[in-house]
């Protein structure tokens, strides 16, 4: 009589149905191949192997299944490893320093905003033939405060009389107590506040320009004084 060779196996109970016995035999063989049997079970099963061809065939099938599963799983891992960028090396800082980056980031934001506004304003102020100047303004939007001021001065001088000043605070910007409400401030309001700092006989410099100039002076990409703190 052929046995499954697993006297102590709680999962080894056979049944009258061939398929159940077959499943049980496969499971036993897999446990043997995986080394999940204790010494007694192994010894008993190996005694079976020496006489039972079907048990040998189940072991061969279990070994094949195990090898195929390992190959399939290792292939998937390889594919996923290639698809997902590898984690940064240990000798490379994982996170950039926060403080210096934050300061630089605001400066960059200010510059970008200045450039965008300049471009938008320049497009509305200049005739179409001024494309070259606009491109120059955009292409050369660097941290140079002087270039921004010069460009703005030149253009605003042409249409200063027609262009309404940005951001005089209107009555809707004041709360019930008559105090300006800062909750709704925007660039227009900022420029109105900033313009108060400028002499009356000067051009009304919009706030974004002042911010751009300040940011242009305070940060440069290659600034050696930029403090870098590592985590």
């Amino acid at each position, binding site marked *: 009589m052929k046995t499954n060779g697993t006297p102590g196996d709680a999962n080894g109970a056979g049944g009258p149905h061939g398929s159940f016995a077959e499943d049980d035999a496969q499971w036993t063989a897999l446990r043997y191949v995986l080394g*999940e049997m204790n010494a007694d079970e192994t010894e008993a099963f190996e005694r079976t192997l020496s006489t039972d061809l079907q048990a040998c065939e189940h072991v061969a099938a279990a070994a094949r*299944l*195990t*090898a195929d599963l390992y190959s399939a*799983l290792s292939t998937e891992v390889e594919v996923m490893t290639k698809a997902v960028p590898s984690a940064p090396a240990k000798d490379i800082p994982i996170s950039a320093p926060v403080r210096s980056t934050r300061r630089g980031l605001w400066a960059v934001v200010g510059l970008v905003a200045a450039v965008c506004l300049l471009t938008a304003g320049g497009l509305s102020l200049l005739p179409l033939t001024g494309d070259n100047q606009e491109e120059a303004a955009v292409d050369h939007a660097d941290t140079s405060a002087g270039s921004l001021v010069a460009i703005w001065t030149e253009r605003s001088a042409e249409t200063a009389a027609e262009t309404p000043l940005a951001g005089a605070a209107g009555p809707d910007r004041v709360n019930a107590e008559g105090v300006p409400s800062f909750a709704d401030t925007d660039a227009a309001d900022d420029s109105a506040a900033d313009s108060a700092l400028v002499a009356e006989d000067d051009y009304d410099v919009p706030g974004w320009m002042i911010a751009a100039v300040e940011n242009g002076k305070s940060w440069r990409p290659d600034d050696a004084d930029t403090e870098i703190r590592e985590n």
Partner: protein
Amino acid sequence: MRIDSAVIASLYERYADELGLFLRGVLRNSDLAAEALQNTFTKAVESGHTAREESLKGWLFRVAFHEAALLRRRGQIHDRSLRQIARNGQSSGDSGERPEERLSRSEMLTEVQRALHDLPPDQRRVVQMRIYEEKSFAEIAEELSVPLGTVLTRMRLALKKLSRQMQKPGT
């Protein structure tokens, strides 16, 4: 009187693959399995004529198991990793595998992956942890915080599904 070489060649072609898998399952070492397989067919050349023709396969497996037991008694097994069982199937470059065999194995691999994906996630996880990560069932039970019996049941159900899936026509 020795068995005919043509018969030996025929036996090798029919049973070498299955015998090799059986030996890898017993020894869990591809190199030793290959050595045992070679010894088996050496014995077949020397003594195969004594076996009855209708039971040649059984005779081969008995001899193979005996050879495996000999090697194991010599204490030559050091690595019982499943990688050793799988390695022989992966190294096709220097094994003289024919192109059609490589294609067949590639198709089989695709079928296995498909069968794996069809498994319920909890069963698939157990299979992956046991087969690929080579953790014991006890370690898996501890890591997943489930009873050992649950892990065994999941693995057994997965085995049943995988076997059925891979025995379908066309696989």
